[in-house]
């Protein structure tokens, strides 16, 4: 049986200057899920994440982690449960060496030296930075810094991993390897992962379920469902992944498949299955509605005439 990892009830938050950042947020995340939170700039994603590990304290006890109110948790317990990796790695690496940085969390947890050592080695190995212990974090490349920041959170061995824009500013290779790393953590260690990101093309690689945030939670569901909803996307300044769009286009040419794929790998599967199912071939053709359908479709995807 799965447990509720995160449960938030009726959360509201305004910054001291009066800016309303979150309104009536309700979410429930089961242990082991892969969740993405998407939303336009200023939607409140980062603010929500600050609540998840108690950095911003809500007064109404409405953030519950593994059945326990986060406001009631001791610092050690809290950071063992939830680890947050923020967006800018420079904000998170402030110790003179990588070792010190990755050891920072475990030391604050009051672990003994051997255990700290073990955790640092294991976290660095996980992100592929073994041998970097004595390097100065500030002098690493951007991709390395991103991974070091992740290691510094992994060393606390949190059950829930929260990542704010993990792939921003990374080159495609670093991006792919970070995505793989996050998925490995979910698969192999059963860590619940929650990411916020703008890169809709990568979202489906990191999430089985998506929340759309815009101060309120405006929608929730599996990626296919969310990306199918043109109006939702447009109203929230979002977009569908390119692969998904392309299969919508293909369907105008008479290609029918059960569910539209979101990534290349899924696309290959869908194509193979559909074509095999249809007696080894599929017709793409221009029927009487093709042009009309295409126009409607492209119009819907175009943000500027909505």
């Amino acid at each position, binding site marked *: 049986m799965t447990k509720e990892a995160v449960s938030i009830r009726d959360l509201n938050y305004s910054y001291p200057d009066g800016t309303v950042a979150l309104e009536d947020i309700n979410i429930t995340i089961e242990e082991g899920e892969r969740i993405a939170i998407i939303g336009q700039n200023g939607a409140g994603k980062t603010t929500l994440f600050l609540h998840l590990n108690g950095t911003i304290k809500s007064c109404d006890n409405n953030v519950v982690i593994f059945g326990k109110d986060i406001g009631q948790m001791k610092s050690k317990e809290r950071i063992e449960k939830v680890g947050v990796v923020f967006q800018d790695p420079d904000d998170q690496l402030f110790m*003179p060496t990588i070792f010190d940085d990755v050891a920072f969390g475990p030391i604050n947890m009051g672990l003994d030296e051997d255990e700290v050592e073990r955790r640092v080695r294991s976290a660095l190995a996980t992100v592929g930075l073994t041998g970097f212990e004595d390097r*100065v974090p500030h002098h690493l490349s951007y991709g390395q810094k991103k991974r070091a920041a992740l290691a510094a959170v992994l060393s606390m061995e949190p059950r829930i991993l929260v990542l704010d824009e993990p792939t921003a500013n990374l080159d495609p290779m670093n991006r792919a390897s970070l995505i793989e790393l996050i998925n490995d953590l979910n698969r192999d260690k059963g860590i619940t992962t929650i990411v916020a990101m703008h890169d809709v093309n990568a979202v489906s690689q990191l999430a089985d379920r998506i929340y759309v945030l815009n101060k309120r939670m405006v929608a929730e569901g599996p990626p296919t469902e969310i990306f199918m909803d043109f109006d939702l996307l447009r109203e929230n300044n979002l977009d569908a992944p390119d692969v998904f769009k392309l299969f919508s286009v293909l369907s105008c040419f008479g290609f029918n498949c059960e569910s539209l794929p979101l990534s290349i790998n899924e696309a290959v599967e869908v194509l193979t299955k559909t074509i095999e199912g249809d007696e080894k071939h599929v017709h793409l053709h221009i029927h009487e509605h093709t042009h009309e359908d295409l126009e409607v479709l492209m119009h819907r995807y175009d943000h500027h005439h909505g």
Partner: protein
Amino acid sequence: MHISDGVLSLPVVAAGWIITVALLVITLRWGERDKSIAEQIPKLSIMTGAFFVASLIHVSVGPTSVHLILNGLLGVVLGVLSYPAMFIGLTLQALLFQHGGLTVLGVNTMIMGVPGLISYAVFKTGYKRNISLTALGALCGALATVLAVILLAVVLVTTGEEFVAVAKLAAVAHVPIMIVEAIVTGFVVAYLAKVKPELLPVDLGDKR
């Protein structure tokens, strides 16, 4: 330990302005030896901003909390230009947060800035004598606080002998601050030496 408006007498306030204006002129000229001031303004201003923000950090000492001063560190990192930086920093403190005052800006800058300049000199001398950078940093942090307290006392007592007891109390109250300053400055210098040594007035050897 900034003095507010309305505390000091006219002669003391005037003397503070004369000293500060003179030192501003001198340090700004001096700071122009290698590079024109115009070129240095952006970096100098943003660093001043960093020190300003750092000085808003509260450290709890016993039942109260003090905020960092970092005038020694400012001297070590910015050299002679720490004086104008201190002037700007204190102006903003007075204007934005009501720490200190406007008429006493001259005096306050002198109290904080002169120890900064002395720290810079001490740091450079100490470095030539091969004292460890961390220890030097700690020394400068402590020294700058002590000198500032002495200057503060002098200024108060010169205003009127009514202030003798106040000055003594202020001096005692600054002992914990001095210790905190020494430790923090030492750690900052150690950090800078490792991460960005060109920020310290040290010889980078083969790199330069």
